[in-house]
Every structure is written in structure tokens, then in C-alpha cells.
């Protein structure tokens, strides 16, 4: 049984038996790992308040080869993200980011996406009220790219011809990105993206410093595009629950605004 020491973020936790808790951790060196925190619910001595959602720190766990559930020895938190609970839009966006990682990341060493996740959660945690949705979208697309699923935005995903940036184009989920006019006509299906929506997507996927402005209607349309894209690449058929609640503003105090389904 090897002792693993790694940077980690708590993505999900649920109670296990009487006093323990199972955590799903995003780790810098070992991808997503499940660990059992024995006695975590009964005593604060071993893990203190470190086992809260989105807390970041150094985890030590005993890993057994061939096992899916390891035993957590300690978790020294260096950053708790309480700010994510101070705004429901932030909370919903962070949960969607966690779901994205839980569903797409594997247990291989992926330091790139770990850092992208840290940046995304931090950006959402400090986002102004009303800007958390855009911060979440930016973080999610960057994670998609870091996890190896970046959509093709500058060249046709089917024939690989260069795409003029200023024109609308059709986004095909099965093809994995934008299509040129000819391939778009042949495909017949897909979301039509205006030049502004393409620019926003390129800025997020390319991790550009300048964030594109986003009105609520466009933000929801982008969320729908992202959700459809993720669904296309998931094969298990399970719903993206956190994503759907984020997209539907189900945690917002008021009802979702009209026009939420408008295309970008």
C-alpha cells in the first residue's frame, strides 16, 4: 500500500456508513481519485473543516493497486472557497465545473487540467454578481480543451479548410466543431453561431486574457451549446444534473428569464 501525497481539490463528497465520508478528489498528479475519510463525520480532529466542497490542499492517501477507493490519511487545506456559497450563480457554476471534471477526467496524471480547474474555480469565486455565468462558461470551455476535447474553431471540423473569422458558421457536435459552408450544408444539422458567439468561444477555448461581454440570453445559449457538446462526448447516457440545474437557473431566486433558448 503506497502513500500518495498530492495537491487536491474536493469535487464531491457523500456520507458513508455511520461516521465516514467518501470524497471524489481532483488531484494534480493522479487525476480523479475516490478516497474514504474514516470518521470524518464524527470527529473534526483528523480532517477538521478541510473536507468541504471545492477546498484545496495537500492530500495524503494510501493507495492500493487495483482498488477504486483509497484511504485518506490527511488533508491539509490551504484554500477554502466559501465565496462560492456566497452567491447562488457561483455555486451552480462551480458544481457544473466539478461535474465536468468528474465525468471527463480519468485517473492519469494531468497537471494541465488540474491548474485549469484551480483557475476556473478561483475566477468563479471572485466573479461579480451577474458575471459568474460567464466565468463558469470560460472555465468550462478551458477545461474541455485541457481535457483534450477542444472543438475545432478556426478550421472546418470535417474538411479542415480554414474558416473566415468574421462569418457565421454551423457548429456540429458529432464533427467536433465548426463546419465550413459546404460541409455545413451537407451535414444539415448543427447550431448556427454568429461571429460574436464564435469570438467568445475562441476566447474561452484559447484562454485569451480578454473576456468577451455576454448578455444573459447569449450566456444561456452558450450553456446549451456546451451541454450538447458534452453530451455528444459522453457515452454512459447519464444526465448532467449539475449542468442542467446551472443552465436552467434552478438555484436562482427568480424564474429563468424568457428567451433562454435563443441561439447564440
Amino acid at each position, binding site marked *: 500500500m503506497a502513500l500518495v501525497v498530492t495537491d487536491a481539490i474536493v469535487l464531491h463528497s457523500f456520507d458513508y456508513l455511520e461516521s465516514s465520508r467518501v470524497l471524489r478528489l481532483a488531484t494534480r498528479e493522479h487525476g480523479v481519485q475516490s478516497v474514504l475519510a474514516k470518521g470524518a463525520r464524527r470527529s473534526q480532529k483528523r480532517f477538521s473543516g478541510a473536507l468541504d466542497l471545492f477546498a484545496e490542499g495537500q492530500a495524503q492517501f494510501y493507495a492500493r493497486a487495483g482498488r477504486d477507493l483509497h484511504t485518506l490519511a490527511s488533508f491539509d487545506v490551504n484554500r477554502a472557497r466559501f465565496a462560492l456559497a456566497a*452567491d447562488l450563480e457561483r455555486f451552480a457554476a462551480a458544481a457544473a465545473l466539478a461535474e465536468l471534471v468528474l465525468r471527463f477526467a480519468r485517473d492519469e496524471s494531468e497537471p494541465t487540467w488540474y491548474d485549469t480547474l484551480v483557475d476556473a474555480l478561483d475566477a468563479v469565486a471572485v466573479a461579480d454578481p451577474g458575471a459568474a455565468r460567464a466565468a463558469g462558461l470560460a472555465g468550462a470551455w478551458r477545461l474541455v480543451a485541457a481535457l483534450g476535447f477542444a472543438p475545432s474553431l478556426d478550421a472546418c471540423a470535417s474538411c479542415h479548410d480554414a474558416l473566415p473569422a468574421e462569418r457565421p458558421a454551423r457548429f456540429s457536435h458529432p464533427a467536433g466543431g465548426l463546419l465550413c459552408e459546404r460541409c455545413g450544408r451537407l451535414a444539415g444539422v448543427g447550431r448556427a453561431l454568429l461571429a460574436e458567439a464564435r469570438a467568445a468561444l475562441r476566447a474561452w477555448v484559447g484562454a485569451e486574457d480578454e473576456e468577451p461581454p455576454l448578455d444573459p440570453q447569449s450566456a444561456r445559449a452558450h450553456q446549451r451549446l456546451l451541454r450538447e457538446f458534452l453530451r455528444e462526448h459522453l457515452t454512459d447516457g447519464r444526465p448532467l444534473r449539475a449542468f442542467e440545474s446551472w443552465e436552467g437557473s434552478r*438555484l436562482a431566486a427568480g424564474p429563468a428569464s424568457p428567451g433562454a433558448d435563443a441561439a447564440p
Partner: protein
Amino acid sequence: MSAIDDLAGELSKLPGIGRKTALRLTYFLLKQRPEQSRRLADALTTLAERVRPCAECFNLTEEERCSVCRDQRRDRGVICAVEEASDIGAIERTGEYRGLYHVLGGRLSPLDGVMPEDLTIDRLIARVRGGEVREVILATNPSLEGEATALYVQRQLSGQADGVAVTRIARGLPVGGDLEYADGVTIAQALSARREM
């Protein structure tokens, strides 16, 4: 499946009981007199048939309304909202609270698919709208999900119940604890929630 396997299988579904312990309990029961097993079976049947959520606060009870809601000496102007019925026992043991309760039935958790409509928030709002309530204490757990749940309930109440104070239980250092041994997260929370003396 044999009767032994059947019972051991059911017992092993209980928290803290693994397959081996379940078998040990099964063999223990087999060594007892048959009346003992019957009493246990009766108690389980009675539990399932009689215990239900209180019609008012969703605490567990055998009556239409729980003992807290029936108690006329309780302060009916204060409602303490908790995640689970088991949290009520922890607050009652302090002997410091004389108001009523409301069991939300969990906490918001988008990853687990727990959304506002899965909780009893609408019933809490209906109680507050009744007019008698002057304060709602949000006593959800001091976790990120508990805080988000409290925030959601506060937002819902703020637009629906004018003049009702919505408060949140404090969090910070434990009584009798030692600052030197407290973790950074707890100290940070205690500092941010400091109060004037």
C-alpha cells in the same frame, strides 16, 4: 436464498454493519428465544407503520403533529430550519431553544440532483406567511452546500415575508477549544464572524 442469508443481507444494508457483523447478528438472534426475534420484528414493523413526518414541520412523529409542534409552551414566533430531523435532537439537547422547527429534508446539491423542489422550502414559506412568525433561524450545516441552501432559503423568504427576521447560526471556534490547535479554516471563519464586545 436461505432465511439466514436473507436476514444477513438486510442487516448489512444498515449503516456501520458489514457482511461479517450482519452474519454475527443473525446467529446471535438465532440463539435467542423466538419471542425476542418476534419483538424485534414487531418493533421494526411498528416503526415503519407509525412513524411519519409531522404535518407542520416534517419532524418525525407518530402523531399528526410532532411533540414540539403540539407543545403550547414553545415560542411559535421563531422557527429553526434544519437539514434533517436528526438535527433537532442535537439542538434540543442544548436546552437553550424554545421555538419551533422546520425540517428541510436535505440540502441543495446540484451534483446529487437535489434541487429546491426536493426540499420543503415552499412549506416553510407557507408557515412564515401564516403571520405568527417573527424570526427564522437557518441552521443548515456549516458546509458549502449548507451555506448555499441557507442563502437560497433566505432569498426566497426575503421577498415573501416582510418584517420576518432571517438569521443564520454562527460558526467558529468550539467551546473549550484551544486556538493553537484549531485549523485555519475554522479560525478564518471565527475571525470573519467576530462580534463587538
